[in-house]
């Protein structure tokens, strides 16, 4: 199915986006990413281990020529920290994109939307393609677009919770209010959650823990790939309206008397 998602002239072939955290090893990461069919992967910026140099590099397993690399600012609790991580990530020279996170609370990892808006504005002015991780609030989504975001990434549920799309109605309102791509980020637990997000009309879904934490990550990646395609097709096909009462599928005409 040729149905690319385009963000600022970057063409994404896959609408399932995947993270690379929490895997057993890089080999498993590579196999799960491959099975997911994703052409974009998120990564984090962290200190190189200067004591133990035997550690391999993620990019030896995830080829930046094959995958679009989307660095995040995970773990940042202030605007200044998020800007620092985003700038370091861009300096690596493989992507101007940033999945911007400014976290406001340790327990829920919910975003600090005030900080997020400020950081979005600054990074957009610096030429970054800013994809902010936000909550499922439509007004915040609108403000992020005004601040220069290239897309918005509302959460379905808290990061790593696997609770699914807790507020599909808000996601639907975001889709109506925001004219830019909407990518559900966080909360997916299993295949049906991905389908629900895509059936609502979301442009893509980003998943990490649901795959990495599954008993069989490669099989789960395959399941989510299909769920994403199924949800997207169902959205495009146009579902029937919900009705309270039955309407027979077989004709009344021709019944025996």
């Amino acid at each position: 199915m040729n149905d690319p998602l385009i963000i600022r002239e970057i063409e994404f072939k896959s609408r399932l986006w995947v993270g690379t955290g929490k895997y057993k090893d890089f080999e498993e990461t590579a196999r799960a990413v491959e099975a997911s069919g994703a052409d974009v992967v998120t990564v984090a910026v962290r200190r190189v281990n200067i004591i133990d140099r035997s550690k391999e590099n993620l990019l030896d397993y995830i080829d930046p020529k094959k995958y679009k690399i989307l660095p995040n600012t995970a773990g940042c609790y202030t605007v200044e920290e998020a800007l620092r991580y985003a700038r370091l990530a861009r300096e690596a020279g493989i992507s101007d994109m940033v999945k911007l996170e400014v976290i406001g609370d340790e327990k829920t990892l919910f975003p600090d939307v005030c900080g997020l808006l400020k950081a979005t504005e600054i990074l957009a002015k610096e030429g970054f393609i800013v994809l902010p991780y936000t909550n499922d609030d439509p007004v915040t989504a609108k403000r992020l677009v005004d601040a220069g975001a290239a897309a918005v990434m509302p959460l379905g549920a808290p990061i790593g919770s696997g609770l699914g799309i807790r507020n599909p109605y808000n996601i639907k309102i975001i889709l109506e209010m925001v004219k830019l791509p909407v990518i559900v980020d966080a909360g997916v637990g299993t295949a049906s959650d991905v389908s629900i997000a895509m059936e609502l009309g979301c442009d893509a879904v980003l998943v990490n823990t649901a795959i990495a934490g599954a008993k069989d990550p490669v099989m789960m990646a395959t399941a989510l790939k299909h769920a994403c395609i199924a949800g997207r097709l169902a959205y495009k096909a146009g579902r029937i309206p919900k009705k309270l009462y039955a309407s027979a599928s077989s004709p009344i005409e021709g019944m025996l008397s």
Partner: protein
Amino acid sequence: MKVKINGLDMEVKSDSILELLKELGIDAQRVVVEVNLEIVRRDRFAEYKIKEGDSIEIVNFVGGG
């Protein structure tokens, strides 16, 4: 020369970023370097002189969501 690298106090022989990365066995193409909160562009690694007491951060991409 005493410097701080990734939060650790270290004694190093090198006086440029490029030499320092070699000394530490790190591939310069795979990392981003910040000295005293200022990013040092990769094309300046060879000419950039490290000073006593500098706080150096060497980062790369790791798995993340």
